[in-house]
């Protein structure tokens, strides 16, 4: 499972900062993880933890300025994305890695017809195709009813769920090896959310692509991801197989998050969650970044930042006291 051949993309000690080089906001501050072929992994965390910046960085999409790639490597088939030529990068985006974002109505251009917007992707990356037929095929793939007529619709004529299907169709136009889905269902209603999740899962099976799911919703992760990476303050604090991490969390933050989500069956009494707020990135605490909110903190947590420690193969925790949890 953990062999090198299975790895599609490897992130090593990535650092993405924003603003002034001398006094930057360290949005992503030294994270490492791998994405395996055909697998679903998830980056989980609350707003401001750096999960979306990490996702954008995978295809070097963080704009510079204000972004600064301050260190680390992102290997895609042996090539470092951060050092690629602009030309190679353009080839890779869309072809190998593509994105689906949270709000489809903000990602679609309101003044162009759906058919044109899907066709644009095909025109850029896959010359010589019958664009119209291929667009219809893509729309059928993502379950848009009556695709031939829908080509002539404008985005506002479609519901939120249908708009997200169009976004997915565009993302899949070149059959990417990795689909990055950044909160793909957060803007949708529950029953529509279920439709989109079902679609993503079936497409993944059929096309054999890897999916990186960016979300704050642990319930979503539990149902979909093989591997999860829990982020806090620009770091991955725990990562491993979803069952392990969700059932036996080895980091107080993961534990707190799980303890903050009410369950459908309502068996828990009172949930305590996590006290306090996410730290201000301009004013990071010393030592372990989670220590001000951590119920297990001790002296050493304030003084020294913990390193990744292996709980088991493929399962890491960044807590001095993971053994005691």
């Amino acid at each position: 499972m953990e062999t090198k051949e299975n790895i599609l993309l490897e992130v090593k000690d990535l650092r993405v900062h924003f603003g002034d080089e001398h006094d930057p906001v360290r949005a992503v501050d030294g994270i490492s993880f791998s994405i395996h072929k055909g697998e679903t992994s998830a980056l989980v965390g609350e707003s401001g933890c750096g999960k979306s910046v990490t996702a954008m960085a995978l295809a070097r999409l963080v704009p510079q300025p204000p972004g600064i790639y301050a260190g680390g490597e992102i290997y895609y088939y042996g090539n470092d994305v951060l050092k690629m030529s602009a030309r190679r990068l353009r080839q890779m985006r869309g072809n190998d890695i593509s994105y689906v974002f949270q709000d489809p109505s903000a990602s679609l251009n309101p003044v162009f017809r759906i058919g044109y917007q899907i066709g644009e992707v095909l025109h850029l990356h896959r010359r010589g195709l019958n664009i119209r037929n291929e667009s219809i095929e893509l729309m059928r793939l993502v379950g848009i009813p009556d695709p031939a007529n829908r080509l002539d619709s404008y985005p506002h004529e479609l519901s939120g769920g249908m708009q997200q299907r169009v976004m997915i169709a565009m993302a899949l136009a070149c059959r990417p090896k990795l689909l990055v889905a950044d909160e793909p269902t957060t803007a949708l209603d529950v029953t529509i959310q279920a439709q989109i999740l079902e679609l993503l899962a079936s497409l993944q099976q059929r096309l054999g692509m890897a999916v990186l799911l960016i979300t704050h919703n642990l319930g979503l992760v539990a149902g979909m991801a093989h591997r999860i990476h829990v982020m806090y303050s620009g770091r991955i604090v725990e990562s491993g197989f979803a069952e392990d991490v969700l059932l036996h969390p080895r980091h107080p933050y993961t534990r707190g998050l799980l303890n903050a989500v009410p369950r459908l069956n309502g068996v828990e009494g009172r949930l305590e969650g996590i006290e306090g707020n996410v730290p201000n990135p301009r004013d990071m605490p010393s030592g372990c970044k989670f220590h001000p909110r951590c119920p297990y903190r001790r002296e050493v947590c304030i003084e020294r930042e913990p390193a990744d420690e292996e709980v088991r193969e493929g399962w890491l925790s960044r807590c001095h006291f993971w053994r005691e949890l």
Partner: protein
Amino acid sequence: MVVPMPFLEGIMSISNRPMPFSAVDGELLRVEDLRVYFGHHKAPVRAVDGVSLAVRRGESVGLVGESGCGKTTVGRAVMKLVEIIEGRILFGGYDITSLRGGNLREYRKQAQMVFQDPYGSLNARMPVGQAIEEVLHVHKRGDRAQRRKQASELFHAVGLNPEYLGRYPHEFSGGQRQRIGIARALAVGPSLIIADEPVSALDVSVQIQILNLLRDLQRNMGLSYLFVAHDLSVVRYMCDRIMVMYLGKIVESGSSERIYSFPSHPYTEALLSSVPDVGKGLDSRKGGSKRIVLKGDMPSPTRQIPGCPFHTRCHRARDKCRVDAPRLRRVHPYQWSACHYAEELLEENRTASGTSKSDAF
């Protein structure tokens, strides 16, 4: 965290002026056959189309459904913020449907609202302390010094440092802003709070802090909540009873314990199976629970759908559903359903629960 309530007596003493309302057998709010339509009278949007509900003193009632189902409009109608086409709203036994002017203001001291977006509902140019004092001023409570003192007591009650009263909304985090929204709603000493998606704009770890605050306030002050939300897990955490809305109608209601275990309407069933949930998600990996995926979108509320409003998307629809509109009826001592085949569904879930549901968590 238990919130201390030293200010409670203060509020009670000021609010002890005679009220035109008195309680009848524990029922604080009663809504009867409420209808709210928007737009042109020939093809109106039937946002709320015959909703009845009751909230008892100290109770939390959840109103759940997806966007466009009319749940927010019900809340706004109870606050008398939208025009009511038909139906009655009783508060403490008094009909408030046509209240105006001073009487309406008296009523709004008793019923207050907490909104989804605390940033949007606070004036960005007004220090938050002033925003709270303004409420007291509008309702002619105390003099300036008393108002200031009360604002600081309210801040303390919702878990904020009273030293921050002079700060502006942008200086607070989302969770803190929602605390301010709650403090402002509590300022006039209401007995009913209508909470419209109070935590859906907040981060997971902050959500639970706000939910716990609302629970503590309820216990300490005997508040009643009409809790409007789309998140079924959150509603489960907060509410004793729930009502499920679809296209302006209540399709199922009853005790939450009952409904979450044994839904008797296919829409509730689909909603419950669609909600991403940690326990359910892990369960589904072992081939446990299966997701029911509804087809299509919610129809436009301008369209009059013959028969059951849900039949266009229902995974159990039959011929009868296309012509005959079901009424909300009692299917269990603690459960009402608007489905022709509720008994069948209950029976099915009861048999299934013997196997998979008992070990699901």
